């Protein structure tokens, strides 16, 4: 039984989020909204943590993959959903759900493909090329989206609106749970020990037969996939998206969460995602000081607790009960 603990925990979280989702009308809409933001940020941070934390690469373009997912999923919903309905057995909550899942997957896969295209060349190089390339990619995505035609499928600088509000507590937290499960299981398996090995010492990792490029690309593609999913969730929560919403400051926000949470610590990153999202909400009136506060927080953190809020430990402890 013990060997399936993590699967059981996953199932419980998914069912719990379904329960809360059903009862969502009973909760204060404002707090519900914050909770959904928290969930989306957990997905973003845990997936970026796979790249920046566990594998030791430095991606600064997570928002770009979120954008690709957001646009991919939204366009799918806006253009395809209506046509799919009859095939899925007509309009109804089941058909809507399946269509939404498809939209999210389309967004996630588009982001994963972009991740592969960006990661393949840049992850072959040693050093900080990835930071520069991803930062550049982030801006490229934003500029391209901004320069699309206003009445085309991408909606130009104003972006897309009228996206159906399909994102519920269930979708956000079920996907967050899956994200945590996937990253956690991947990293804690023997196969996954290659990720921190690459981070700790790339030369030693190569000399131990670890295909370092493949690990880096795998982390990057999986990370991008979940960033894409979070983008789809975000789009169907806000119902409008615009290129500006996915600028590099958004990427920076996620990097801050990962650093504060402790690179490589899934639990720490989840806590940091909760704390910073809520803090963000309270600082909403002081929007202009937000970056200042974050920067000071980062500096203090670097000095006082460079390892992050929690020490890194695998969320799945696969120790043999001998």
């Amino acid at each position: 039984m013990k060997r399936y603990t993590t699967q059981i925990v996953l199932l419980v979280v998914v069912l719990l989020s379904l329960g809360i989702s059903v009862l969502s009308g009973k909760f204060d809409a404002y707090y519900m909204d914050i909770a959904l933001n928290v969930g989306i940020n957990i997905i973003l941070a845990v997936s970026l943590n796979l790249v920046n934390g566990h594998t030791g690469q430095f991606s600064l373009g997570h928002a770009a993959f979120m954008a690709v997912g957001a646009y991919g999923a939204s366009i799918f919903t806006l253009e395809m959903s209506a046509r799919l309905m009859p095939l899925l057995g007509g309009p109804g909550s089941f058909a809507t759900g399946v269509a939404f899942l498809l939209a999210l997957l389309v967004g996630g896969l588009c982001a994963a493909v972009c991740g592969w295209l960006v990661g393949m060349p840049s992850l072959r190089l040693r050093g900080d090329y990835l930071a520069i390339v991803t930062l550049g990619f982030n801006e490229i995505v934003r500029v391209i989206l901004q320069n699309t035609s206003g009445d085309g499928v991408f909606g130009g600088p104003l972006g897309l609106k009228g996206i159906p509000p399909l994102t519920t507590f269930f979708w956000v937290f079920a996907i967050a749970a899956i994200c945590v499960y996937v990253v956690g299981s991947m990293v804690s398996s023997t196969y996954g020990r290659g990720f921190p090995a690459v981070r700790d010492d790339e030369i030693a990792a190569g000399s131990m037969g670890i295909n370092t490029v493949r690990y880096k690309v795998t982390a990057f593609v999986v990370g991008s996939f979940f960033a894409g999913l979070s983008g789809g969730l975000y789009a169907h929560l806000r119902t409008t998206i615009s290129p500006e919403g996915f600028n590099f400051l958004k990427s920076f926000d996620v990097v801050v969460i990962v650093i504060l949470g402790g690179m490589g610590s899934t639990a720490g990153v989840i806590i940091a995602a909760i704390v910073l999202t809520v803090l963000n909400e309270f600082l909403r009136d002081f929007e202009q000081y937000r970056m200042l506060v974050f920067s000071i927080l980062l500096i203090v953190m670097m000095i006082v607790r460079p390892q992050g809020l929690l020490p890194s430990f695998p969320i799945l402890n696969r120790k043999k009960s001998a």
Partner: protein
Amino acid sequence: MSTGLELKDVSISFGGLKAVTDLNFSIFPGELLGLIGPNGAGKTTVFNLITGVYTPTSGRISFNGDSVSSRKPEGITRMGIARTFQNIRLFSSLSVLDNVRAAMVMHLKHGILHSLTRGPAFLKEEGSVEDEAMALLDIFGLKDACHANAKSLNYGDQRRLEIVRALATRPKLLLLDEPAAGMNPSEKDDLMKLIRFIKERYNLAVLLVEHDMKVVMGICERIAVLEYGRKIAEGTPKEIQSHPKVIEAYLGAAAVVD
């Protein structure tokens, strides 16, 4: 067909510096070859050439007939060549056990998707990986420390863990770069016994770099001597001890070999 490792006219230069020049030597299967030479002679560079960290400027390195020099480090390890590092390069954030597990990745039958489904075959393999890792750690007296962080080990244990990690790749040829550095004489003695033990047990060829002459002469079947990147002598310990060039270049200064 196993003919062992063969270096043919291997050279590498860094800018103007010729670190290794026209080097020729072989290691036969199951042999323990010592590689000695003064500081900066190029011994570590030879390791880096064999393991693909550096690419030779000219010359050819082959292992059991297959060319090594065109492959990346992980490809060379897959051919059955493993190494330790003179300036310890353990995975510092990982536990002792996980350092060893990480080195077993290339032998896994299961991949990333299996780590998500966690089926019985996957769990069985995870168990057998751990058993194998623990057995190796046990040989080097590190079993009890298996959950400790690798960098919390003392210097000698870190060197031992380097060897265990290299062994976990299931090599045919093991390259040891000053594995006994920083150890006291009795620790050195124990380590050399262990090296001989694993060599027999796993049927390994070993290339050993070591500064302590007594140790080298005691354990090696054959010795090659480097000076300024060139091989100046090769032969049995006896031949090396009385080789005039070696005495001049290396032992002359130390002159403590009895």
